[in-house]
């Protein structure tokens, strides 16, 4: 039952994103365009780009994710389907989880899969690419989950976007720091286990608490 509910919501999200006009620059495209801009603006100097590549990639992943979260519940809120969801879904956190999962597929997962390309454009040595991908696949689910809490809290509000950023970015900072430092250390030949474990821990915690919090937050937002 709950599984069916998950699946139906998940499918709906995929279809809807595929047809949407509001995917606020779909995260993947955002990342690649921004990376090309960086490369162009630095005059394409491989040395400089290489030192900065991990930072650029991780910061852009964060920003892309946050931008796409902004629209996660907005359309549903405006057309009234969020009301239906809050009133009828049982248990309520299941469709919420499905929505977050779908958002992650289009942002975190997609960006992880294409991160090697991004790395190559920025002249990241290919020995580092696996670490880049591992940190991304472990870190991005937490970005989506934590971000969704912020998105749910701000969906009905004026100035939602601004609030969202202020609420969410502080939560993102540890993930960013662990992610970047793992790649940097790998580049210097130091072991990266600690960072990996930390990223896993953050994601595990998020996955347990975030869906319930998001559901509660959505109720509050609908009841205006």
């Amino acid at each position, binding site marked *: *039952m709950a599984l*069916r*509910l998950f*699946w*139906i*919501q998940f499918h*709906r999200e995929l*279809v*809807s994103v595929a*047809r*949407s006009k509001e995917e606020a620059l779909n995260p993947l495209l955002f990342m690649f365009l921004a990376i090309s801009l960086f490369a162009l603006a630095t005059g394409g100097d491989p040395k400089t780009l290489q030192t900065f590549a991990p930072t650029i990639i991780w910061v852009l992943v964060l920003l892309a994710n946050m931008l796409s979260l902004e629209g996660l519940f907005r*359309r*549903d809120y*405006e*057309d*009234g*389907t969020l*009301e*239906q*969801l*809050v*009133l*009828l*879904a*049982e248990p309520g956190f299941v*469709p919420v989880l499905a929505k977050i999962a779908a958002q992650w597929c289009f942002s975190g997962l997609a960006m992880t899969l294409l991160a090697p390309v991004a790395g190559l454009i920025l002249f990241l040595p290919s020995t580092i690419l696996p670490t880049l991908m591992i940190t991304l696949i472990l870190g991005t689910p937490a970005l989506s989950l934590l971000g969704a809490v912020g998105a749910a809290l701000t969906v009905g509000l004026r100035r939602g976007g601004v609030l969202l950023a202020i609420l969410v970015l502080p939560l993102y900072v540890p993930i960013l720091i662990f992610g970047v430092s793992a790649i940097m250390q790998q580049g210097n030949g130091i072991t990266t286990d600690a960072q990996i474990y930390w990223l896993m821990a953050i994601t595990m915690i998020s996955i347990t608490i975030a869906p319930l919090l998001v559901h509660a937050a959505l109720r509050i937002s*609908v*009841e*205006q």
Partner: protein
Amino acid sequence: MSDSLLTTVDLRCERDGRTLFADLQIKLGRGECLVVVGPNGSGKSTLLRCVAGLFPDYEGAVEITRALYLGHKLGINLLLTARENLHWYEGLTGQASLVSEVLERVGMAGYEHVVCQRLSAGQQRRVGLARLLICNASMWLLDEPLTALDEAGQGLVTGLISDHLATGGGVFCATHQPLAVAVTQTLELGGRQ
């Protein structure tokens, strides 16, 4: 108590400093239809949202069975087709139904696979109304269900309401247009301004 679908005790709500309604005692049993009327801005929609559990900013108590709420907002995703919307709704309510039959009954046969954005205003409303045929809640909360509908559509809605009442359901409906069903109670909000 078990026979009452909706009971409110001393319901009272204020918005922007204006008291919309006060001391409202509603008691709706099976097969009963309560219509709320009143001028624009008198608080009909607010009352319905209070009762539906979508507006907690009231005083007093509300007791209600599982209900279906159809508001001013369409409640359908315009990027999906009619079929996809109803399919999602089925999943949400846990009810299985024959979506194509339902769509045919609301007069949308032939438009099942059109993205709702490309439907006319009334057709979009009809897709929203199709939910009445899927959800088996015994209480219906309807906010101006006749909006944008042609004559046939209005007949359809009144037909659905009558059927629902006949099978022991309850209906709580806000409307500006006369409703051609057996209205059990009428509630008037707001004095003429």
